[in-house]
């Protein structure tokens, strides 16, 4: 008779609660496993000190009137399953591990899907793998990211912005975070699952359950709450603002870009917004530059890691060659125009940029730069000129001289 002392590979495992179950990520095999609470308790008891009988005794404390032998049998089966998945070692006083057979469950409630495209940037980017957990209507809330199967059986991962339970089946409406327009509503039967984790470059990131939306307020309470409005801003950065405060915004009008965090993005759908050009969901560690920044290749010497950068305005990278661009940036979003000084640099930017809203222009590295309202007169003595904005020609000049290197 062999006595086993199962030892869980705790150092390789990350555990996250997912409702009444837990999801375990094995960083060694880069795989996810869904465990019920009993299975999780068994796994936790596998400390290399307990025998299978010990573990069964621990587990049976949670059951009443359960036949202990059947508990031992269930625990043994569960541990066999863990061993087959590489979640634990079966340390034994005799080397008979080969007598343990592996089982392979086939009907998993977890679905792993590779991400393509940037509609959920930067929460999801191309190359990510999302883990979707099969979910019922009751499990889904506004703000959750779900994987949908479209009519061509392609998978789309977008965020829920509304749920209509008055239809049969219930209809949900989703939206990509980088889009202003919503997707067409689809039936709940098209939901493959709720995204519970994202695996990027081998590392998992858990998608936390969003806070519950507050219920309808009573009119007397409504009167006491004073609500702010935002109008005429280039950037409205709400990434460090709570869900409650976002839901408390009275209106947003005429804003270029609204920045939200993955934690509060779902609350945006409740804000009355008009003339908002774009919304982006960006973690707080993303750098945000607004205005007309010029980035210099000289920073490469000092960069600890490539930049994740969002620029709202005009971005000048004219000092960079293509290799420097590839080394400097990991992710790049430009809401506006981007300027480089060669076709090679342009190609490099196109290969790393997630979004460039206003196009890429090639201009000379060394140039005079006028932004805003400018005027060109006969006194002009420096060229080439890059003029962004309105450019007038003085009466004394008449028209723009032929041969003047002017980029607009």
């Amino acid at each position: 008779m062999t006595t086993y002392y199962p030892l869980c590979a705790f150092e390789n495992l990350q555990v996250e609660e997912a409702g009444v179950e837990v999801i375990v990520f094995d960083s060694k095999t880069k795989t996810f496993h869904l465990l019920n609470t009993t299975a999780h308790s068994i796994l936790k008891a596998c400390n290399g000190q307990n025998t299978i009988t010990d573990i069964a005794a621990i587990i049976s404390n949670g059951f009443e009137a359960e036949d202990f032998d059947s508990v031992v049998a269930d625990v043994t089966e569960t541990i066999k399953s863990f061993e087959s998945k590489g979640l634990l070692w079966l340390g034994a006083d005799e080397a008979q591990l080969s007598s343990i057979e592996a089982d392979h469950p086939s009907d998993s409630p977890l679905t792993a899907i590779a991400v393509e495209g940037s509609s959920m940037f930067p929460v999801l980017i191309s190359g990510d793998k999302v883990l979707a957990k099969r979910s019922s209507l009751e499990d889904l809330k506004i703000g959750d990211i779900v994987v949908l199967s479209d009519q061509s059986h392609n998978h789309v991962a977008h965020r829920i912005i509304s749920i209509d339970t008055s239809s049969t089946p219930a209809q949900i409406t989703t939206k990509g975070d980088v889009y202003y327009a919503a997707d067409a509503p689809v039936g709940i039967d098209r939901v493959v699952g709720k995204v519970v984790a994202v695996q990027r470059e081998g590392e998992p990131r858990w998608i936390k359950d969003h806070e519950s939306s507050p219920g309808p307020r009573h009119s007397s309470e409504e009167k006491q709450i004073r609500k702010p409005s935002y109008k005429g801003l280039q950037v409205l950065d709400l990434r460090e603002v709570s869900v409650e405060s976002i839901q408390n915004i009275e209106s947003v009008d005429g804003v270029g870009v609204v920045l939200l965090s993955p934690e509060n993005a779902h609350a945006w759908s409740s804000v009355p917004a008009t003339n908002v050009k774009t919304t982006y969901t960006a973690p707080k560690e993303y750098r945000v530059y607004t205005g007309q920044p010029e980035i210099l290749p000289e920073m490469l010497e000092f960069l600890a890691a490539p930049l994740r950068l969002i620029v709202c305005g005009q971005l000048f990278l004219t000092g960079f060659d293509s290799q420097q661009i590839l080394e400097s940036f990991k992710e790049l979003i430009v809401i506006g125009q981007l300027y480089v000084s060669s076709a090679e640099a342009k190609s490099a930017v196109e290969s790393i940029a997630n979004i460039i809203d206003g196009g890429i222009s090639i201009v000379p590295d060394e140039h005079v730069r006028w932004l805003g309202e400018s005027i060109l007169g006969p006194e002009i003595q420096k060229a080439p000129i890059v003029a962004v904005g309105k450019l007038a020609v003085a009466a004394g000049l008449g028209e723009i001289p032929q041969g003047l290197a002017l980029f607009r």
Partner: protein
Amino acid sequence: MQTIIRDVPILDLREVSIDAISMLKLVENVKTVVVSTENVEAFMKVPRVNQRSHIIVHPDESLFIGQIEFNDSFLSKLPENTKVVILGHLLMDGFSTSLFNERVQGLRVYGQIFYADKRSAGALLARLERLQGQLLRMQPNAVRWIGEINLTPSKLGSLAGQPVIGIGPINIDPGLTPEDIKSGISSMVHIGEISGPEESICALFSVCDRRLGTYVVKAEVAERAAVA
């Protein structure tokens, strides 16, 4: 009693309690409000009209307001690994990058950054987490014109051909000719409005390597000058 605050460029509420902020009835015509992580949620509930932006300063950050000469003298006064927030403009003729890396852990700038030394700018960019403004190259040891400037013959004469960095409106004296301007200013970086006769504005544009802003042609002034 409730308080209304209006018509101030910067409203610093970092040290104000949540209770006191909840007493604010209205904030109006304020360019930038500075709040802390402790009281930002209370401020979000305050009604606001024409407030351009708010900045949340974390407890471990140091805020500086105004034009900062960002050099070794400034850096040497900072404790090691300071997280710096600047609300204003930052002017850099150059600094020791090793001192910068020792003293500045991170940087947020709400204003313009002017640099003369590319390597210093590179070191700064590597730690620049947030920029609301521009990064502009200026000539070394440029004369600083901060605020509204009346560009008169004597003002121009005092330059002796030195480069200029200007932040703020420039009103060109009608007594200055385009030739005076072109010969008096070797190079200029300017942010703000330029007003004066059209040909003088064009002359000032012609010496600007970098410029952001608007211009206003003062036709009446130009006509008076012509008559005189």
